[in-house]
């Protein structure tokens, strides 16, 4: 080995092949490349956390977050919201009898009406929601229990719905349209709002039912089979969901364009809620062109066609009136959160600054004995 390497060097490769390096010149050196990457010397930024970088960071976060939080909080507070529970749990509540006697099997609707007073007028558009509590629309088996192809107007899915719909797939030998547990449990209370003006007459408030669903849902995801022609023909050979009173093509007797799978109340219901307490958009009360508020303060009556039993699972039903802002409905949480986090950061910054200051003096005195 040594002898041969000696030769390779001494004779500078003019002998060929006697040594192990046979032709030293020809053999490429195995020396690694001296590149920053291969030598792990890539220019790197080391985040060095010193007082100089950390303190400003804390203050900046504090200074940015607190104003945002205040902004959010104020805009949330500007939103007017009114909520009324009409489940009828209490003896005194107007819907008590309905709630008590009503079940899915009842054929005649139960009517009740709730009076309420708005203390403040609602400006601009008012959104009318119905809210359910303790209703687990996010239950795993419930969420799955639908057939999107059927809802998209697929003819073959209409006649033979997906297995996911079981056990709400067929009834009396016919496929159910729309199939599945979500559709089956469609919220079917009807709410009507009346304003009692000063002289005691009640005026019906026009409730707009268009535009409450996502545009993409209404126009892309949900489609009637065979277009919007004669729905009765299109849905022939299917059965209505067991809990429904009317077939799907008669969901909205007042507007033929709002029937079948593209009924907006139905679409809204089919978008399953994330949490057991949720609200769903029911109607929109359009802002009036005149300067009068959409809902002036005063007395109102809510007429309810009570169809939807919730007491069996200890559920609650609510009606909510709300205006909205750029950040959605009324929710002070985010504003408070921003303010809190901003304050904590600011506070930490101050604490660190104090320690920094203290430590600086100690540093000087401690260094002297060294």
């Amino acid at each position, binding site marked *: 080995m040594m002898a*041969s*390497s000696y030769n390779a060097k001494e004779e500078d490769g003019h002998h060929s*092949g006697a040594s192990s390096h046979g032709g030293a010149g020809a053999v490429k050196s195995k020396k690694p490349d001296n590149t920053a990457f291969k030598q792990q010397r890539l220019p790197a930024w080391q985040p060095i956390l010193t007082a100089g970088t950390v303190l400003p960071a804390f203050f900046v976060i504090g200074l940015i977050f607190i104003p945002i939080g205040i902004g959010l909080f104020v805009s949330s507070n500007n939103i007017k919201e009114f909520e009324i529970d009409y489940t009828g749990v209490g003896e005194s509540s107007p819907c008590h009898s309905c709630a008590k006697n009503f079940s899915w099997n009842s054929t005649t609707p139960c009517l009740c009406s709730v009076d309420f007073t708005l203390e403040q007028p609602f400006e601009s558009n008012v959104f009318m929601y119905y809210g359910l509590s303790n*209703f687990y629309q996010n239950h795993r088996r419930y969420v799955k229990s639908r057939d999107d192809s059927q809802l998209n107007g*697929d003819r073959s899915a209409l006649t033979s719905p997906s297995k996911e719909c079981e056990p709400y797939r067929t009834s009396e030998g016919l496929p159910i349209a729309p199939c599945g547990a979500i559709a089956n449990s469609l919220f079917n209370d009807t709410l009507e709002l009346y304003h009692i003006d000063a002289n005691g007459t009640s005026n019906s408030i026009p409730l707009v039912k268009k535009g409450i669903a996502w545009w993409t849902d209404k126009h892309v995801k949900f489609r009637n089979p065979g277009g919007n022609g004669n729905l009765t023909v299109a849905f022939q050979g299917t059965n209505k969901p067991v809990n429904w009173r009317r077939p799907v093509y008669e969901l909205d007797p007042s507007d033929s364009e709002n029937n079948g799978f593209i009924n907006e109340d139905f679409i809204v219901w089919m978008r399953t809620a994330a949490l057991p307490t949720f609200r769903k958009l029911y109607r929109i009360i359009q802002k009036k062109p005149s300067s009068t508020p959409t809902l002036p303060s005063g007395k109102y009556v809510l007429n309810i066609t009570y169809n939807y039993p919730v007491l069996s699972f200890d559920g609650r039903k609510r009606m909510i009136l709300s205006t909205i802002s750029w950040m959605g409905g009324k929710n002070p949480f985010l504003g408070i959160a921003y303010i809190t986090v901003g304050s904590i950061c600011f506070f930490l910054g101050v604490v660190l600054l104090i320690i920094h200051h203290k430590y600086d003096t100690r*540093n000087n005195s401690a260094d002297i004995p060294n």
Partner: protein
Amino acid sequence: MARESEDPAMTKASKVKRQRKKKPKENKTRTVHANILYDNAKGEENPNRHYANNEIKTTKYTLLSFLPKNLFEQFHRFANVYFVFIALLNFVPVVNAFQPELALAPVVFILSVTAIKDLWEDYRRHRSDQEINHMDCLVYSRAERRYVEKYWKELRVGDFIRLRCNEILPADVLLLSSSDPDRLCHIETATLDGETNLKQRQVVRSFYDLDCDFNPLKYNSIIECEKPNNDLNRFRGYIIHRSGRRDALYKENLLLRGCTIRNTEEAVGIVIYAGHETKAMLNNNGPRYKRSKLERQMNVDVFWCVIILLVMCLFAAVGHGLWMFQYGDKRPVFDVLSPEGTDLSPIMSAIYLFLTMIIVFQVLIPISLFVSIEIVKICQVYFIHQDMELYDEETDSHLQCRALNITEDLGQMQYIFSDKTGTLTENKMVFRRCTVAGVEYSHDANARRLAMYQEMDSEEEECTSHGGTLPRRDSVTSHQSPHGQCSSPPTSVLIPLCCVLSTDNPSSVLQEKDITPDPQLLDKPTSQLPSDLADIIDFFIALTICNTVVVSSPNQPRQKVQLTSAASVHSSSSLITNRSSNKGCSSLLSSPSAESTLTKLDEEQTPRGLEHAFSPVPPCYDGKGWNLEEGELRYEAESPDEAALVYAARAYKCSLVGRLPDQVTVELPHLGKLSFELLHTLGFDSTRKRMSVVVRHPLTDQITVYTKGADSVIMDLIRPPDTGSSKGKRQKKIVNRTQNYLNLYAADGLRTLCIAKKILSKEQYACWLQRHLEAETAIQGREELLFESALRLETNLHLLGATGIEDRLQDGVPETIASLRKAGLQIWVLTGDKQETAVNIAYACKLLHYIQAKFLCSSTEQATKSFHGSFAPFEIYSSSSPSSHSSSHTAAPFTVHRLGLVIDGRTLAYALDKSLEDKFLAVARSCRSVLCCRSTPLQKSMVVKLVRNKLKVMTLAIGDGANDVSMIQVADVGVGISGQEGMQAVMASDFALPRFRYLQKLLLVHGHWCYSRLANMILYFFYKNAMFVALIFWYQFYCGFSGSAMIDQWYLIFFNLMFSAFPQLITGTLDKDVSAETLQQLPQLYVNGQNSEEYKPYMFWMNMIDAFYQSLVCFFIPYFAYADSDVDLFTWGTPITTLALFTILVHLGIETKTWTWMNWLSIAFSIALFFTVALCYNASCPTCYTPSNPYWTMQRLLQDPLFYLLCVITPLVALLPSWINSLQKPAGTSSASAGSRWGHPSPAPRHHRGPFYKQSNRAGGARWGPQTLRGACQISTLYFLQK
């Protein structure tokens, strides 16, 4: 194409198998006929048809078998089975959670990534196979009556092939003819064993006398040999000629596949083993698989993850049962019946839910963890491989990682077991001193020159050009050469020769060649007893011929050179005489003593000596001018000791000029060339510790045995002098004096060898020869018989002298050892050398200090009991030290560490006894350094095993020779030095280094990095998955524990695999917590890894808690922000996914110590990938992907200001604690920046073994007194410390 060609081969192989079953007889031996005899006959007639052809196929798979075979291999990993099980669970409708096909995706992805990796590796093997199979070689064709070029793969057993110089052998070939004058063929076996010295192979004896070229057509013999096996050093068989004569075949006749023909113009041979049956292929083993400590630790935590998973599932199942139960018989509308329409009892649905939850929470067991670790390790190996500082210019070699999966173990070593020779030392032997016949020749000039070399070496480091140092060396040599002695009256026969020598002594770079003769020895006055002189001559002859050194001249291939030397006239033996023919003439000769003969000779020759000596060119031979180029004769030895001795002898003008299998030619002063007939060579083995040659002395025709070996053995074999005669007394005195000198040499750290000889009478020789021949021809147990035969011969020796050879320390060894020590590593040296030598080397490399108390444990005949006694005092130390717990041994007090323990092999045997090993360990642990000398390879491995198993520490064994192999294999990490002694150690090792000093960077820098990177990555992995899964767990409280997930199944499944995978790989590969310079300046930082400080069991739980906290934040901020709104399931879940991704990425950012552009890029890429995938996925299909139904969700979210507000606040709140926690890190604990940022990287010197954080705390405490600070203040103060 290739596949097609493989298929017939396969069917053939199966046919062969069938036929073999029919003929079990065939299994004993292999019979090889020449193929050309059967050229006309069809395949069935050819007797060689059953043997493998030369086509090699190292691939594991074929196109057909790839899928089943690869899957089968992958399912050996338990985790894969688990993931497949979970994916399959999804196909059961009652419990399924995701779209079943989608749930299969990650498993399929992981399996296919591994499969593609395997396929790629296999394809590369296939490519290289193809390349090798299509190399050309010359095969004799009967039809064309000449050698034609064929591909390697077309070669068959029984083919004749012609090999030219520098060609690589395509198969194992029996050498039948060579163009070499002596019917030799030189091969280089570097590819097989890494040894670059040329080896001689010899034409089969019966084809010796062919003068003309070998004609394959005339060949009609049959070869019988053993079945293919993987022993490179064994080949047995015989060749049967048509005449019925049998000739034995030896390994010397076999040329092995993969070797290169050197120095030989042309050779012809017949293929014996081909393809996969060649010895080289049979020796090919795949890489080793070891499991690192970190991985073992990780597996524990994986197990914990399983438990957490089960607890979470159980919790959810019970919750679901209760939730169901509260509704009683009144089923709410949202509680869907089972598909069959039947009611599920709460208990049943709880059980189903349990299984569903396992599917939903499966992410907790990180499916990509194993793959990611593998990828990171491959990258780490790549970087270690590329490190310039681990590259050795001199040998053009760099570090090799042979085991790919234990890189992080390098950062956790606690004990290093090192070999001495070749590992700590250069293993470049320099002849230093010798003693002949009881007289010491100290070769002071040599010593002086060596000292100057060392100085020059240091200068050399500054000037890189090699040529620049040469002239200086020349001058040194000439200055040192004893010109003065030449002018003295030529009273000695040797002096004139010395003058010739000293002037034409070639200057050389290599020190071992450069020996300045000792003037005293050259100046030997004739007045001394003639027997002394005879001893001197014999001594040098022994040095010259008692070895296996091959002479090679740079002019190659060797030409026919007619040796007509005067010496060969004396020698009556001819080259081709059969050994058995010696028997006849042995009785003719009397047996005069060597002394008298030589004296006679001297008397005859002394007058002529002068003439001879002064004539510059010995007149008695011609040829290619060997004389003129004598200086360029190169000696290629198997061991550097041998080369050193031969060069030493040449310095005294007793030079080896040629070695043939049967003859050694030595050029002697005034005698010219002498050809010794080499009767036998009894090779060196580690049991006998000696080698012998039996030669016939050309002058006296005596049978002489020269033996060279370890002093301990040789001294026992010396013929006891008969004390009666004066000669006997003198002999005894010589032996005693030699022994003294030997001790002296050993004390100087020299390697000692004894030289002895023995003269055999013809009768003795004949008697021995007979039994030796029996042994040689025996097929069964040949090795044992030869061993016994050697023992019979090597008795009653006559001591000639002894040599001392110096083995220099490698560069940087003391520094490396010092710095490894500082790093808290215990270094034990295990060597086979003598105690004195070992101790001296230990002093030289600062392993032992003179001030250190030293315990020498060497017992000769002491029984176990006395051994007990000798260990007794140390028990005090071990019990008083607080280190009775195994892992905390580094904390033992310093007083104890000032001890050094030296123990020799025999004592070690006692110490390793079951009853004593605990005591031995207790003593050894309280010593700062341990030195085991005279230990056998087995003992070395036993020591390593003992320490490893008993102390439960991480061990590293480093060595370079075959004797270190067992130790290397036993240790957690085996490091081989690719040095002078072949490649066996390297082959057995996990890492191979060119030099010892590279160990420092390998361990301190790469080891630390690999460990800390991997440890952090694994912890991060656990954190990441727990954090993500916990989000779903919190959700169960709001969905009736129904197993619902607000995170879309796609995100859930691909989150780990795609969205968050790249940044952690980049950080795991590139992050540097401390710079390389700091790590080398502060070896103490290594303690970090030894104590597993980056990954302690509690850290897993800390990470889990952190993960749970962060997931709480990521869950509940969106929860409250969207509480009682009209948000739907996935419009709410998608922001949570996004927040979790941001949080996880920023958390990684906090963990990342150094940011390169790749980190930035990978994080940007991850985020971009997530949004791209989300947008595409949400826009692609309005009806697919049930049940998640995510159409247009992300698009709507991006228009929602609330989403952005959440994205800002949530990660900040989630990460505030860990950020604050990270502030205190750089200053508080060991890391980083500590050293570099404080700007004074010189640590307290006394604080060698203390964990580094103590030290930094001390330093901190001295200055700021952090004790006074409490709680959060302490955190922030500590962080300010480093400002």
